[in-house]
């Protein structure tokens, strides 16, 4: 139904599809199909529904939680060939694309008109918009602009029974419950998206960025609290600790001042507003004890600051043979407390832990350093990573802020949700997928796989090729 060249069954061909950007979880699918139209996707899902075969939709494989991990004996539906931009409607600020279009391609298409697509996950050069919908992707600027769910207005999707349907609407206030809001972020477990309508935004008139260096992480934390208390919502607020700064310096030489903590604050909006509020932010940084405040003088300077920040993940490879990327969230005011616990954990375990995080929304990305050639260290790193999630949950936070639960963290779900909560999630899932064929084994814990522990970070091929960096 999709043509012979769109069906892969040779083991060597299937290899590429065994995992996403979480390479320690691998499964071999029975077959990979590469449909080129929504009708072909529908035909494949219908067949799966008829014969009871599990299927997993896959975008460009950049997910960090194993959300696109194949099911043994199942079908992988790659949406890479559904990669057309279907409509650009500037007057109504809407763009319609197929799911295989990359996140950045949308901005590329509308940039000449002075517009952009706001969610900016760090993999935006290569990640697909269909994957963004599945994961409700965020990025560095979601403090002010929100996540994918705030920018998608309508999708066309194939439901697990094989029906093709529109969910959401280009027009506001569609009557009825917000099924689109449920679908976005459901990690590919409720439907296969075949078309996405997103809202684009007018480029802000001005962007201004500063970098402030601090002797202690708590002083930087105070600065963030004071900025927020002053009624300012920055476009981005990022923090890096000493180990992350050292790694970034070694990798891309951003000339960060040597310090314990670096705070990056970016404001955007109308020029007068940014000018006025930026002066307040600068004053707050100085008042809270910043040893250096560096204001980006031009776009090149701004990009250099961001390069240092964005390189921090990959740069850990310069200071440690292996490392593990964690993704957890704490209420912003609990950041100092949780970072203190992580520091103590690092000392206790003997493993270095670098911290790079979205300080504005409390989204932590601890980078746990270890050496897999030392017996037991990989296992220790896994335990440490799990322990950090416990700290996040105990502080009233979440086990994932943007990477998703996927296959990786489903066994941590009971730490956040009660048995009743998880049952309700399953009930909702069964309502749309009664045969349990649509990306099974993800999001919700399955007793069968209990005890499986999330694994370490390994460089993804797209990162190795220099195509993407991580936050």
């Amino acid at each position, binding site marked *: 139904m999709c043509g012979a060249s769109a069906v892969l069954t040779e083991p060597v061909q299937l290899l590429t599809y065994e995992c996403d950007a979480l390479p320690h979880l691998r499964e071999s699918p029975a077959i990979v199909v590469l449909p080129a139209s929504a009708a072909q996707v529908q035909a494949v899902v219908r067949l799966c529904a008829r014969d009871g075969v599990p299927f997993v939709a896959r975008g460009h494989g950049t997910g960090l939680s194993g959300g696109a991990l194949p099911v043994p004996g199942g079908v992988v539906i790659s949406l890479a060939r559904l990669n057309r931009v279907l409509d650009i409607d500037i*007057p*109504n600020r809407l763009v319609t694309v197929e799911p295989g279009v990359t996140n950045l391609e949308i901005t590329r298409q509308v940039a000449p008109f002075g517009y952009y697509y706001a969610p900016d996950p760090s993999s935006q050069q290569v990640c697909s918009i269909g994957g963004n919908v599945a994961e*409700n992707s*965020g990025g560095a600027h*979601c403090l002010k602009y*929100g*996540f994918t*769910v*705030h920018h998608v207005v309508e999708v066309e999707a194939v*439901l697990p029974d094989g*029906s093709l*349907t529109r*969910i959401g609407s*280009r*027009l*506001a*206030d*569609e*009557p*009825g*419950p*917000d*099924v*689109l*809001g*449920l679908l976005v972020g459901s990690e590919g477990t409720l439907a296969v998206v075949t078309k996405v309508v997103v809202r684009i935004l*007018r480029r*802000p008139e001005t962007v201004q960025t500063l970098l402030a260096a601090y002797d202690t992480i708590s002083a930087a934390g105070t600065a963030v609290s004071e900025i*927020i*208390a*002053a*009624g300012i919502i920055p476009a981005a607020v990022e923090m890096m600790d000493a180990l992350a700064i050292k790694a970034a310096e070694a990798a891309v030489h951003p000339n960060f001042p040597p310090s314990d903590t670096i705070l990056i604050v970016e404001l955007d*909006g*109308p020029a*007068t*507003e940014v000018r*006025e509020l930026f002066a307040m932010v600068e004053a707050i940084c100085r008042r809270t004890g910043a040893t250096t405040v560096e204001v980006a003088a031009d776009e090149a300077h701004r990009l250099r600051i961001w390069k240092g920040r964005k390189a921090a993940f990959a740069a850990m490879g310069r200071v440690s043979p292996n490392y593990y990327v964690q993704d957890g*969230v*704490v*209420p*912003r*005011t609990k950041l100092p407390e949780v970072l203190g616990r992580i520091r103590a954990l690092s000392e206790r375990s003997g493993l270095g832990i670098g911290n790079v995080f*979205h300080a504005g*929304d*409390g989204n932590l990305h601890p980078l746990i350093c270890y050496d897999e050639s030392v017996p037991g260290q990989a296992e220790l790193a896994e335990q440490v990573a799990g322990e950090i999630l416990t700290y996040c949950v105990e502080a009233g*936070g*979440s086990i*994932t*802020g*943007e990477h*998703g*639960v996927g296959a990786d963290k489903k066994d941590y779900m009971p730490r956040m949700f*009660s048995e009743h*909560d998880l049952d*309700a999630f399953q*009930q909702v899932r*069964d*309502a*749309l997928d009664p045969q349990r064929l649509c990306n099974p084994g993800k*999001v919700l814990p399955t007793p069968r796989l209990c005890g499986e522990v999330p694994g370490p970070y390994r460089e993804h091929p797209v990162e190795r090729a220099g195509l993407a960096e991580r936050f």
Partner: protein
Amino acid sequence: MAVVPQGRSGTPGEAIDGLTPRLVAEPASGDACAAVLAAAAANSLSTVVRGGGTKSGWGRPIDAVDLVVSTRSLADLLVHRDGDLTVTVGAGVPLARLNTRLSARGQWLPVDSAFAGATIGGVLATNDSGPLRHRFGTPRDLLIGITLALTDGRVIKAGGTVVKNVAGYDLGKLVTGSYGALAAIVDATFKLLPLPHASATLRAVYADPEPLAADAAAIAGGQLEPLAFDVRAGDTPEGPRWTLLARFASSPAAVASQIEAARALVHGETTALREGLETRAWSEQTGLVWEGDGAVVRCSWLPARLGEVLAMVRAMRADCGVTFTGRAGTGSGLLRLTGPDAAVGAAVVRARHDASPVGHVVLLRGSRELRSQVDVWGTAPSAPAAALKRALDPTGILNAGRGPL
């Protein structure tokens, strides 16, 4: 009376669509609420969840209500984490009361309902919103966590108390706009915003709609960032007037410069409104269509079609009295139509024609007769929405068939 825990007889003040419920329960906790729903399901009681009762006449006309579950006693919870810019609040807390509390700490939940008594639960269930949605979206965009009581007697949570979180299904969004047809909302957690430092509104008044639509497009296509961006059509002693309102809220200098920049773009007769005058203008704008008699119809359009929508509004004036307020940036508006039911009903049907510039035409307020003659929602639930309804309310006790689910 013992059919539901703590059930008592209903009173006329608790009527739903003019019908006094046989029973009323006022559970004071999530568990108590779930127990009431479980009893209602076991006894197949037609059940309506009621907050402030400000929209209890909306929806398809109904024949009977067995049980009203009032959220009045779910009104004590209010946990404001001001440092984190979040709040957890009981479903029965009125939105206005919440915002009074938050403002003491310089924060707000930027949702503006037209109804003074609207509760948090009701605002979510109806996805109520006002002019502030231009910047902040509708309640679903600010919701980060929810507690629900289900008809099987369980209390469940989804989301959490942090602003960034992708663990589990977002059931909070699912119940937004469900009109109480899936579950009862027990409490909700929102992200908050700091109150703006300064605010001012530019009002531009036009004798004709065409230049207004052109000016609205010019503002929308530029780099001004209004907090609210509204349009209005109504009668004045001098005849029909068309009004554009753009509110700017930011630092004082930024507000002043944006007001001037907006003034340079528009061609109507302009006034800059500040402080008391500004507050009054927006409360008038929000309440306008709800005051006085008449049916109220909601409709939506693609923002670039504003000119056609205003032309439609002008044409409607041939058959009924028309007052119109809308969100110029998001393409959402309300029409108050006065006149005989037949004329109003015909106007609704015409607005649903394929050639009409508006869609999602919903008759929100109307007499029982009008709501019997005209399909209130104009649409049937989608297949996934219907499947979710069957899963979460298998006995079909919730919402008494008022719709949309």
